């Protein structure tokens, strides 16, 4: 059986919600970043699947994917720099350790 649009969308939606779930439940900053990458990759899958199955005549989805990958790298670079700085001052990369400001 050939995989169709439905199968790929199922996988990408699952990935998206796994990412959201991980982002909300994990307390380690690096793991939270990894969950964010899951979200972005599910979007990539979405774009490629839509482009291939529904709009095969154009390239917009593919281009978008390339840009998402590039931006995700930039975002991770800044995020990791911030996390390293947080580690220097708090000696931990657990989000629970950074809780000086509250209501």
């Amino acid at each position, binding site marked *: 059986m050939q995989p169709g649009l439905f199968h790929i969308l199922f996988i990408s939606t699952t990935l*998206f919600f796994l*990412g959201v779930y991980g*982002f909300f439940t994990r307390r380690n*900053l690096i793991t*939270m*970043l990894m969950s*964010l990458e899951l*979200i*972005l990759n*599910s*979007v990539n899958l*979405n*774009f490629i699947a*839509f482009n291939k199955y*529904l*709009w095969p005549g*154009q390239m*917009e*989805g593919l*281009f*978008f994917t390339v*840009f*998402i990958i590039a*931006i995700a790298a*930039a*975002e991770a670079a*800044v*995020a990791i*720099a*911030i*996390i390293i*700085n*947080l580690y220097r*001052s*708090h000696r931990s990369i657990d*989000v629970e350790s*950074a*809780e*000086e*400001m509250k*209501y």
Partner: protein
Amino acid sequence: MIPDFIYLMRSELVVTLIIFFLLFVKIGKGMRNSSLLPVIQFLLLVNFLSHFACHCSGNLFGNMFLVTPLITMQKAILSLAVYLISLLCTEWLKKTEHLAEFFLLMLSALLGMFFLLSSGNLLIFYLSLELATIPVAAMANFDLHKRISSEAAMKMILSSAFSSGILLFGISLVYGSTGTLSFSALPALLNGSPLQIMGFVFLFTAFAFKLSIVPFHLWTADVYEGAPVAVTSFLSVVSKGAIAFVFMTFLYKVFQPLHTTWYNLIFILSIITMVIGNLFALRQNNIKRFLAFSSIAQVGFILVGISSNDPGGMTAVIFFILVYVFSNLAAFGVADVIAVSTGKETIEDYKGLYATNPFLGWILALSLFSLAGIPPTAGFFGKLFLLTAGASTGNYWLIIIAGLNMVISLYYYLKLVRAMFMDKNENPIPKIYVNRTVKWAMVLCALAIILLGMFSWLYDHIHSLVA
């Protein structure tokens, strides 16, 4: 013959040139802060004036980059705000170790906002939104040795990365159901199918994160408190203004076919935003947190204006943001002067400020009056136009609730004014020497707050650009 794109992209080119100039300063021997800062302030003034060089409109790169006089006007407002920040925060900027990097990041974010306002395609829209948010997270971490500064940056980068993930998921669903990313082709293809509604709700959520509309506002107060005052004022005025402008174009131009869907969303969210923002502002003791929650409440009022869905609403929102720039920046300017010279940030410390520093007391009082919307100031007219625009849809409940919220907000703004003017303090803030540049910028803000309310030509001008 000068090519078109130099005219149309002049503000982007000027900002890019300033960025390169700062990079070269950094690579070279480097300059002392006290000699570099006036140069940067002058360049930012040039950047502001460059918007008035021509009154042109057009599009570039196959409809990806749009320029109209209205967009130029919005960019000019943002540039003016950045110029004012560079003047008002002179004291802090002189002390910082990395002045060139600070402006590199701030101008990169500004460049991103310029492209955001001009974007005519979801791809450019996404790229510029990232360019406008990632540097701000790095800026929030600028007090490298302070623990709360790195906590603020961590909260900011995580929430903005998460919201851009949601934004992308929404864009992918919209792309899947319409097959186009272009703003001009999208409205004809939107027919309200469930997939499109779902994509739209994801997009709306991402905007709600960036604008700190209430269920998604939790990062705001922490980031505002932890970041240096210069960054906080940039976040609350420039970032918020740019996103509000683009949100409006988005709803009015691109998602016009889904009007009934987004009207209901905005109706509910604006009520929650005003109420929660005001109730939390009541109990704050730190001046930055206080201003953060007051800015959340102001976003609720902006949403009332956006809900009108006509040119009048658009004019009202742009005028309100212009007024908000002056009043909020003046308030943050005073907070910055006091925080830099004494390190005091709580409202308790502001008791008796008028007795020792009458100038700062008056400026802060005037800006708080404008934020609260008390008649002679421009803030009153900004709110009046917003509510009138919101009333044009015939939904009077929204206006009644907004009016009640204005009363609640009066209480906490005037509480701070009372603390400054009437309360006694055994350990007041000592007399502070205010730098001449800072004083000049504060007087400029105060004049704008008073005069914008009295002369209507600017409002008429914005209205003629919108219509």
